[in-house]
């Protein structure tokens, strides 16, 4: 192929041409240095080395693992473990500190808020909602209505032992099933429901004797919910004048609750979450703003 006798040299630049021509334009031969070619070969060699050393080729059910046994999954797990160890260190400081100290110490507060946010999303959000606003039967943690109290300690206790959870220390408050168990008859339930509704700012049912309702209330309900309907936290009796009713604020909902009350269960988190995380959650929930 090489015809050294028939080289064409471009007159203007004095450079020989490659013999390639496109529509009258001739390509000049300004040869690339050899070292660059060798760099190209070196990259090929490097690629082959890479195939051997690192995981590379997908096979049908697996892949070539590479002689280094390198695994990003293992790297990630190791990093995760290191992170956990670091977290455990700050966590142990949280276990020793009082809730008030955690809340007023910047470093611990930052950690508790971050830790609490993550734990809340994993454990609490399914019931209380991702925004902690609750729903029918699941208390709103954002507002200032607390059935069992909203101080840091109250929240912490509720978290730790739960409500009607079966834990020995659990908070328990059982509302009797006045209708189902025959403690009150239907008229009495209608009367007391309308009385409570009227006191809570709702429209009572027409034609119901509110005075009789008051008597029924004072005889049966006041011992827990108080004569002023403000509730009693020691037994978990809700404030009946509050804006939020756990099971709905209407005469029908009140009737249903007097007839056969639903008593929701909050699990005890002790044993399921570590103490530092429970404390973090208490601080985090308290910081929603409804905490007392």
């Amino acid at each position, binding site marked *: 192929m090489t015809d*050294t006798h028939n*080289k064409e040299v471009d007159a203007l630049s004095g450079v020989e041409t490659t013999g390639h021509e496109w*529509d009258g334009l001739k390509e000049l031969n300004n040869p*690339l*240095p*050899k070292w660059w070619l060798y760099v190209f070969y070196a990259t090929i060699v490097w690629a082959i080395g890479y195939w051997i050393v690192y995981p590379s080729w997908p096979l049908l059910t697996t892949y070539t693992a590479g002689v280094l046994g390198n695994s990003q999954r293992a790297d990630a797990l190791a990093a995760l473990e290191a992170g956990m160890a670091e977290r455990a260190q700050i966590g142990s400081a949280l276990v020793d500190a009082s809730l008030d100290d955690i809340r007023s110490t910047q470093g611990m507060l*930052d950690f508790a808020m971050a830790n609490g946010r993550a734990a809340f999303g994993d454990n609490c959000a399914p019931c209380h909602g*991702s925004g*902690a606003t609750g729903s029918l039967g699941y208390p709103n943690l954002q*507002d200032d209505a607390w059935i069992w109290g909203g101080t840091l300690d109250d929240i912490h206790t509720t978290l730790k032992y739960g409500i009607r959870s079966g834990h020995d220390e659990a908070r328990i408050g059982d509302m009797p099933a006045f209708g189902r168990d025959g403690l009150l008859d239907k008229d009495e339930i209608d009367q007391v429901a309308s009385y409570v509704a009227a006191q809570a700012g709702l429209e009572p049912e027409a034609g119901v004797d509110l005075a009789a309702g008051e008597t029924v209330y004072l005889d049966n309900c006041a011992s827990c919910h108080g004569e002023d309907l403000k509730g009693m936290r020691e037994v978990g009796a809700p404030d009946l004048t509050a804006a939020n009713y756990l099971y709905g604020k209407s005469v029908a909902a009140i009737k249903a609750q007097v007839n056969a009350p639903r008593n929701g269960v909050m699990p005890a988190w002790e044993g399921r979450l570590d103490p530092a995380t429970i404390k973090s959650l208490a601080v985090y929930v308290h910081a929603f703003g409804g905490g007392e």
Partner: protein
Amino acid sequence: MRVEPDAAVGSGQPDEWFASAKKIYPMATHGTFRRIKWALLFITLGIYYLLPFVRWDRGPEAPDQAVLIDLAGRRAYFFFIEIWPQEVYYLTGLLIVAAMALFLMNAVAGRIWCGYLCPQTVWTDLFLWVERKVEGDRRERIAFDKAPWTAKKVARRATKHFLWLMIAWWTGGAWVLYFADAPTIVYELATFQAPVSAYVWIGILTATTYLLAGFMREQVCIYMCPWPRIQAALTDEKALNVTYRWDRGEPRGSLKHNRELEAKGLPAGDCIDCNQCYFVCPTGVDIRKGMQLDCIQCGLCIDACDNIMTKIGKPTGLIGYDTDENIERRVAGKEPVYEIVRPRTVIYAAIIALVGALMLYALLSRDFAGISVLHDRNPIFVTQSDGSVRNGYTVRLMNKRNHARSFVLNVEGMPGGSRIEAVGIDQYVDGRPFIEVGPDQTRELRVLVHSPAGTKMPPSTPVTFRLTESVMGEVVTTKDYFKAP
């Protein structure tokens, strides 16, 4: 359409598709431009090697290194300037100014950056100097390369490479000093306690310096660097470039031959074809062939030729910084003109001045405190049992001073009787949270704003978060909204 080589008229295959790099033996020279190059080499390398050791007092909480990029702490320090991560836009400004400065240099004097200031040029110059000291000047080096391997040759070669490696190593070493406290890291490096990354970086930069300045040299400029290509598009016939004034030099011939021609009253050029300009060229360019891509505009051929001209009693400047336009003007019998001030240069200078001024303004007028507010999204608002409404915000406070400062946070635009509360803050001034932020730190807080009980608020009320520094009264604000049902 592609025409097959066989069909192409007068076509032929070239000898080689790839060429061996031609070894270049640049000769030493002396003169004005050589002196300028030495001076710039001392200044630039001096700055690079020594700057990390310059101290700057920033108080007890901040590093006292004048120039430091603290990656772990996410801060960059440059004398009195401290850059936070969200301020890296200064870097954008800096890059614009740098690009425009290159354009301006180019419009004034072509590839002058390449010849005098490019790190590749500066380090290559230094390496060449070492080579010359150990193996001799051009002629000696050529002979030395050809000479058989003797113990003496091995010793000299080894010396050269050792010195090159030392310089390369110190180059890599200086690099890491910009990322840590210099005296500390020097001590740690010496006692093998420095982080692995420091050794890795020193290794990488030692290797690249040794390779690029010792072996690749002009190959970097010709084949690897993109700048010459851009350069070609930016330069014009009015830019000063190292130019062989062929109108004066041609016809060239040996000194004797040209003298004879002159004696006979025949035209004779000033160039005596001594090739000195070619021998000193670090990229192996014969400038007499005209402007070439390979020429880095270092001016050494000017020095070489001026020395010759002086020797033969001719005026200097056969090679000089000149413009294409001028040669044609001279051939046409006109006076040369030097138009430094022309639209191109004025525009570049104006952009530099503008961006520079903007950056300076931004730098001098920037706040030393900062506030950013994120409204809760879920829930957007919470109704309390007394009918009041509460909004939650995540507020981030920044204190860019290197001492702890206290701030009062106020939320303006709320009706009277509203309440503001910051989680974890126990101190309040007139009902406003009083917050301390550590030196050079940010602090994130959950802030709760309550509307007054019994007041019906519109669905959205614009509010202003105002942060007031307690001592100097520095104020920063940001806007957000208070949402209600």
